[in-house]
């Protein structure tokens, strides 16, 4: 599969990326189809976040080829790229002084021409996105006053308001409790299934990854070590190769794919 067809959203070929002489990504090749839900997994420091940032040109440089909808990444103006690809960063302590609505409205930036300002159409669209994502109730609150879960939903809302075909997410559920985690996962599934948004989700939670994605790509030390359907990665030997630690698999009561359960510490059962 070397020639990308019309249905390819993202195509990465032989991509290398270095930061300060250290090779972060090595010979990465994979592609994402239009409307697909792809999870990128792997141990800490495998290069997942770097890869995601390269796809949205937040990090530049690197050798190899990245194409977005059949067009080389370098040929996009940043505004054009933002109309096709949006990004939800990893949660950090950043406090923005804006209210939720102001923040989500800023997602419309790539659709504004110089001197123009947000119009009625943009406001209408943002109101719908706020409703869809369950963030309308705190639309007037400043971002700094939100809880981690609320904040994450707002960041996703802002990315959706951008109206891009592809949504890149960096650990969107890592810092959330069970309730908010379920909400965010339902939100992403709805965006993917109902609105046809292509999703690339970086996560280190393999259980979630296999249950919600169409395909899983695993990175280890900057290289792709697995690329295939979720059912193929949940095998003891495959997992051992990726994570270098023996993992315990059990059957899922709902799904046909087994899931990982934590071992009891210090008790090394064979």
């Amino acid at each position, binding site marked *: 599969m070397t020639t990308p067809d019309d249905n390819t959203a993202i195509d990465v070929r032989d991509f290398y990326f270095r930061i300060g002489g250290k090779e972060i990504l090595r010979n990465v090749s994979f592609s994402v189809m239009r409307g697909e839900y792809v999870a990128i997994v792997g141990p800490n420091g495998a*290069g997942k976040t770097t890869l995601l*940032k390269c796809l949205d040109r937040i990090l530049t440089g690197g050798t190899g080829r990245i194409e977005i909808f059949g067009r080389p990444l370098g040929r996009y103006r940043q505004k054009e790229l933002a109309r096709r690809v*949006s990004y939800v*960063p990893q949660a*950090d302590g*950043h406090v923005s002084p*804006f209210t939720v609505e102001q923040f989500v409205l*800023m*997602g419309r930036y790539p659709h504004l021409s110089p001197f123009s*300002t947000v119009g009625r159409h943009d406001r209408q669209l943002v109101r719908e996105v706020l409703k869809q994502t369950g963030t309308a109730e705190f639309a007037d609150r400043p971002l700094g006053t939100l809880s981690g879960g609320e904040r994450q939903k707002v960041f996703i809302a802002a990315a959706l308001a951008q109206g891009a075909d592809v949504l890149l997410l960096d650990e969107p559920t890592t810092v959330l409790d069970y309730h908010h985690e379920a909400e965010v996962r339902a939100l992403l599934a709805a965006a993917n299934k109902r609105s046809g948004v292509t999703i690339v989700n970086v996560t280190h939670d393999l259980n979630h990854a296999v249950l919600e994605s169409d395909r899983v790509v695993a990175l280890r030390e900057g290289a792709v070590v697995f690329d295939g359907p979720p059912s193929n990665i949940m095998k003891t030997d495959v997992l051992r190769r990726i994570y270098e630690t023996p993992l315990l698999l059990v059957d899922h009561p709902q799904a046909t794919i087994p899931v990982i359960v934590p071992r009891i510490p210090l008790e090394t059962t064979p």
Partner: protein
Amino acid sequence: MKQGFVLLVLFVLAVVVAAGAPLVGIERIPIDVLWRADADQTQFDILWRIRIPRVAMAFLAGSALATAGMTFQAMFRNPLATPFTLGVASGASLGAVVCLHQGWSFACLRWVGISSISACAFGGSLMTVLLVYGLTRARRGFSTATMLLAGVAISFFFSSLILFLQYLSDLAQMFRMLRWVMGGLDNVVGFHDVLNVLPLAVSGCLIVLYLTHELNLITTGEELATSRGVEVNRLKKTLFFAASLMVGGVVAFCGPIGFVGLMAPHICRLLIGPDHRYLTPATLLFGGAFLVVCDTVARTFMAPTELPVGIITALLGGPFFIWLLLSRASEPVGEPRLGT
């Protein structure tokens, strides 16, 4: 619309202050001397050749310094970033002093109405911004501590270079430099100086006014701004350029006037909120009016002795700075990270 109303109030306030300030002074002068045929010539001269140009200069300087401060605060995502804490004003001073020392005079600049001192002050401020930005950047992330330390260190370094140049100069040069470094608005006579600062300050302000959407986005973080479609590197270069134009233009004529760039944007943020589409014009109006008021106090408070306006702004600004430092708002926000 609440913000529109606040903006209107600020506009009216600015007009009232700018129109009223020239009439106040050691001698109260009625406005009609400007057009009455039988008016006293001395009064006319005081009003037209001294007070009005001075108020115009104060307004221009206040607007430019406040807008530059607001721009730095957005770019460094740090409430304590101002032309002075970043050492940019000292950079501009150094540029101007070098120009005085070397006796440079660029004929080509006179054609576009910009003095050589302004050009050198602009060069000095641009150099300093890039230096502080580079230093803060090299330490990965814009922590308040790194930024302030870099700014203070550069300030001291440039101040000693200025002293060194004064030491090397002959008496006539030294006198001109000293008078200049003292700064203030009291040597503005006629509209010549105002017209000299005008192109730099106005073009800087216009650039910032044009980029208000981008300023909003950059306060949410550089990565997020990029993902929303902002060409962050180009934006930063443009804003550094604009801010340096404004600071350089003002400092070249008024010398260092501190704290306007710190206080005006913060007070406006409290009044009108963080949205730069409203905050920028508000800061412009408030900064201008604020410096006009400070200058009016400076020249009437101990009349006939005139205080340098910098004393008034510093007396207000010092405590304000400490209050900011102690308040929650001064915590470093949004450290950019380079994760994997």
